[in-house]
């Protein structure tokens, strides 16, 4: 029996009682519920399609713990919340915060991995050091962090990244644009495969700085490890002092 007919039969000849309150639309009960419907790695568009306009629901979802399973969804939600908010969005911590952010501001109390990944605009401030893959594939906007792990600003093509402390290996790997400033020291292979953009390191840099770089500028105000500019095909590397086996094309700071 169809539900409509069942209802008609059930109410036949009775004075209808009171109606319980019920909200219209497709409800989202929790982040897990959203994740069950979207899978673990949905696109931004898929998330936006299901997400109601109701700010309360969005706030609740952003405040919930995504666990390991729904981090990408949470990342998208954090960006959507920041874009919809007039004020900076304060979040405690989380991987993928500010994923594909296009406007607005996020202030993160603690860092996580993949913060600001694929961001196109807006700002992200981290009060503590970020994890790995900070600002990976970002094309615009700005990130300021106390420090960073490995692969910070990997394949960046635009925007500004400022690391106020030290960062790990592979800073600016495959960069094709944008500016990165590291106010501390960085690990090995900074600027590896870089083709454009600018990398400024105020402290020391590890071995293989600018390995296989094709373009762009790297400036190091401290000491550089061995084999700087190894097999570089273009671009410029400047440093205060270079370790052994530095390439011929590197320059000292005037």
């Amino acid at each position, binding site marked *: 029996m169809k539900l409509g007919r069942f209802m008609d039969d059930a109410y036949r000849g009775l004075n*209808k009682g009171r109606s*319980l309150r019920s909200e219209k639309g497709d409800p989202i009960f929790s982040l897990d*519920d959203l994740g069950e419907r979207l899978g673990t790695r949905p696109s931004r568009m898929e998330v936006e399609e299901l997400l109601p306009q109701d700010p309360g629901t969005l706030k609740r979802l952003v405040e919930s713990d995504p666990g390991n399973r729904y981090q990408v969804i949470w990342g998208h939600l954090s960006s959507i919340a920041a874009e919809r908010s007039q004020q900076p969005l304060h979040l405690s911590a989380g991987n993928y915060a500010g994923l594909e952010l296009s406007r607005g501001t996020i202030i993160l109390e603690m860092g996580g991995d993949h913060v600001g990944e694929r961001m196109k605009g807006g700002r992200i401030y981290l009060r503590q050091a970020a994890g790995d893959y900070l600002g990976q594939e970002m094309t615009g906007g700005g990130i300021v962090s106390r420090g960073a792990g490995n692969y910070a600003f990997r394949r960046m093509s635009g925007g500004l990244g400022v690391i106020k402390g030290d960062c790990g290996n592979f800073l600016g790997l495959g960069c094709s644009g944008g500016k990165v400033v590291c106010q501390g020291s960085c690990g090995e292979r900074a600027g590896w495969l870089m083709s454009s953009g600018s990398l400024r390191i105020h402290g020391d840099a590890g071995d293989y700085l600018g390995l296989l770089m094709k373009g762009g500028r790297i400036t190091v105000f401290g000491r550089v490890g061995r084999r700087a500019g190894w097999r570089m095909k273009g671009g410029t590397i400047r440093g205060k002092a270079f370790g052994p086996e530095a390439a011929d094309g590197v320059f000292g700071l005037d």
Partner: protein
Amino acid sequence: MESLGWIEVWRRSRESWHWPLLPPPVLGEKGRSGSFAFSNYQITLDQKALQLGPLYLENLFHHLIVQYIFCPRSLENAGILALAALKGLGHPSGSNSTYVSAYGLTLGMASQIESAHRMVNIFSDIVSDSFRLERSERDEELVLMGWRRLGELDGRSLNPLDRVVLGFLREFWGASFPSCPRPEVEHLLRIFSAGIRDKSLWPRQCQEMARILGALEPGILGQGPVRAQEILNGSADAVPLLCAANLDAGEYEEALAVLGQKGDLKRWYRDQSYFIEIREVPRARSEVTPSGFAKWRLTDPCYDLDVSYSLSLSPHLIPGVSTYKRDHETSPMMPERAGVPDLLVVLDSSRSMEGPRKGTKTHKATLAAFKACQFAHSMGAELAAINFSENYRLASWTRDLNAVEDVLVEFLATRTHIPGKRILELAQGRPGCLILCITDTHIQNLYQEWEDIKRASEVGRFVLFSIDPDYRDRHVEESLSSLGQIYYIRQLDDLISLVVEVSERAYGGESFIFS
């Protein structure tokens, strides 16, 4: 109890819900403490409940009726809710979970099943009573009376789960139940904020509810059987579950355990096979029958000309003018009833077939064999089965589908020794039978048994489904090709469709013996 006239109360309750087809409660034995049991509905009324009078009983009957006709109503709905509850409780639903027998449920699993069972019942309590509450003022009065009694049992000793549900219903229904300041109440309100009428939301609501309430210590709520009509009518064993189609055997067993049912491999295969369709397309006959007269023209063959009729109308035969022929028309006739060939299934269950997990060779082969047997059985054929590995299980010619399925479902998991002599004996028992042999052809004793298999293929029609063509031996392949029809299966999914196709052809009115 007699003074309450419970039969009259039951009659009134059914009338109120427009006479649903539910059996009347059967009064069981009276308990020592004066309690009453309705055995078929598995409910017991204690003295305190009886003292509340017929109104309490009416509420109870209304509650039962709505559960049986609205939520969960059927075993299928209950199964969907059970799966949702298991998911919500964080039950691992990975595709690699293996089959666990009913006696192999671990303690953790058993406790999760118990929890999921409770969640399904609590969900159906909330949905059906919310529905009743909205129905009329009188229903509201009855519903609130029932739940108030739970709150009044002893407000302090209620377990957290019961307290949270009562606290939620207080907010949801605006009723005067004991309040509960826990955050779970707010979560539950959010889950049910969309109402209870959208059935498509029920699994998600049940899942979320289980996620929230799963951690709480259980109390009175959620006990008792799941109220599905098939369970009440005693036909739960025979009902196919659509939701089982995507489950692994272990998950299927757990979902049924939540509903208080025993799920085994045989039922798992059977439920899946119900959803494979074999079309019965009998070959239609057509017959030519004479109809009226038509003009005979020069382009028509001479023998068509009806001279006597033409001359009876005119003394001169002028072609196309006074020449006539008899016209004919072709019309379809009822198909001739062909003899139904009996079916012998020879199934490989050696270790290389990988065992009864979803997507394995064993799974697809057994499922195809089940379907072929069901179809042949429905067409009136007798069945026989051999399930072989190093040893073999055998079901001789019978009309008992269960006996054949019992043989097919076993997984022997040793080496591959085909029992050629037994196949020949069975084939000779029903000359002209269809022999479906499903194997991955890693047969180690093929040449020893060759003569018997060859003779069996001459007695009946031998169709071989070879699952593992990548490892096929050229000599074995050449030998087998002389037996009859051979299908090499590259994609496991093809196996089912090919077996279905062969069954369709064999039982769909075509005479396969002479084809």
